[in-house]
């Protein structure tokens, strides 16, 4: 009797240790996931708001992106669809105490779009894997799989995802045949121009910016333009405290 009880206690103890070990291993694995895999890219963008603000009211990048991807121009803010847009400074950086920072920056809008997070909440909540993170860091969208549940819209802390409440076609004056439109009932967002990157081109917004306020490249390459820029100047990321690890960096 006595022996059996001891054996049982031992077994129970071992089970607890085993479970705890497993959980620990998973945590370690999760935290090392962000470490660069050799040979992979980590595509990212660095934005220089001062250069961006040089030309007052400039919307070159927005126009180029929205034309290239057939993004409809819907005026109603409740139904609008946007891939790249301007946000009030306090809206883009609500966690930044900017009381004494140069008003030239904080009083002006900030260019925002999908942050292509290392740890994207939208991907975690998507029930159909219509959105996922590619090895090069792009948070991609498969419109064919999107069922329009809008979990990702709720999950994204940056408002980067738009839902098509209405058929977008009537709001497109001359759709380009090079990119499909979307339909009522699917979600869409910036894809870092995966269709252009695949051909070795820069994203449409980067190419359209005459002030060169947007720099695009691979963070895993120490000599890339993005890494050089980030070495030279201090940069912020939106809502860094959330642990999403955005790939869009804003120079200050």
């Amino acid at each position, binding site marked *: 009797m006595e022996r059996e009880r001891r054996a049982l206690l031992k077994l129970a103890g071992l089970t607890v240790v085993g479970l705890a070990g497993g959980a620990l291993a998973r945590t370690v694995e999760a935290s090392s996931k962000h470490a660069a895999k050799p040979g992979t890219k980590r595509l990212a963008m660095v934005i220089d708001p001062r250069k961006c603000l040089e030309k007052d009211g400039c919307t070159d990048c927005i126009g180029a992106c929205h034309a290239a991807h*057939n993004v409809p121009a819907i005026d109603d803010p409740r139904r609008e669809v946007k891939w790249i847009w301007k946000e009030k400074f306090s809206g883009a950086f609500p966690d930044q105490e900017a009381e004494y920072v140069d008003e030239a920056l904080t009083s002006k809008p900030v260019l925002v779009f999908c942050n292509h997070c290392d740890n994207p909440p939208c991907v975690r909540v998507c029930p159909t894997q219509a959105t996922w993170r590619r090895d090069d860091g792009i948070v991609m969208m*498969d*419109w*064919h799989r999107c069922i329009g549940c809008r979990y990702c819209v709720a999950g994204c802390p940056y408002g980067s995802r738009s839902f098509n409440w209405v058929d977008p076609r009537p709001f497109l004056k001359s*759709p380009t*045949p090079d990119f*499909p439109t*979307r339909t009522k009932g699917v979600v869409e967002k910036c894809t870092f121009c995966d269709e252009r990157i695949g*051909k070795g081109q820069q994203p449409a917004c980067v190419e359209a910016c005459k002030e060169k306020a947007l720099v695009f490249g691979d963070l895993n390459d120490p000599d890339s333009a993005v890494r050089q820029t980030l070495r030279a100047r201090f940069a912020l990321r939106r809502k860094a405290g959330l642990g999403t690890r955005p790939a869009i960096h804003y120079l200050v």
Partner: protein
Amino acid sequence: MHDGGKILTGLAVFLVLALLPFWHNAVGGTAAAPQPKIVTQEKECVAPRETIRSTHMELLNTWRDTVVREGTRTYMDARGKTVNMSLTNTCLSCHPNKKEFCDACHNYLAVSPYCWQCHVEKKESA
């Protein structure tokens, strides 16, 4: 034995009604099988004719997944040429007459691929 006339009339009416679809076809003729019109100067499709005919929907699904999910956009076709995997820009470049080509078959078969709700149909010149 006195109802022979009624029974025969009833049978005749039944036969006429039951065979109505056949009469209809005999008089009006069946809907003609579609004749999808090839307008391109090219001689071959991206796959041999019988293959593309029976499995183009599967090929398109493969193209879709390869492009969107794997990020690869070029495809070596049956002619040994490399084409861009694009519904609008590749299929419709050789088959620009979508209405007389794709739709001719699909209407006959009563299938309506929903792809065109998003994929842009180029203005048809033909």
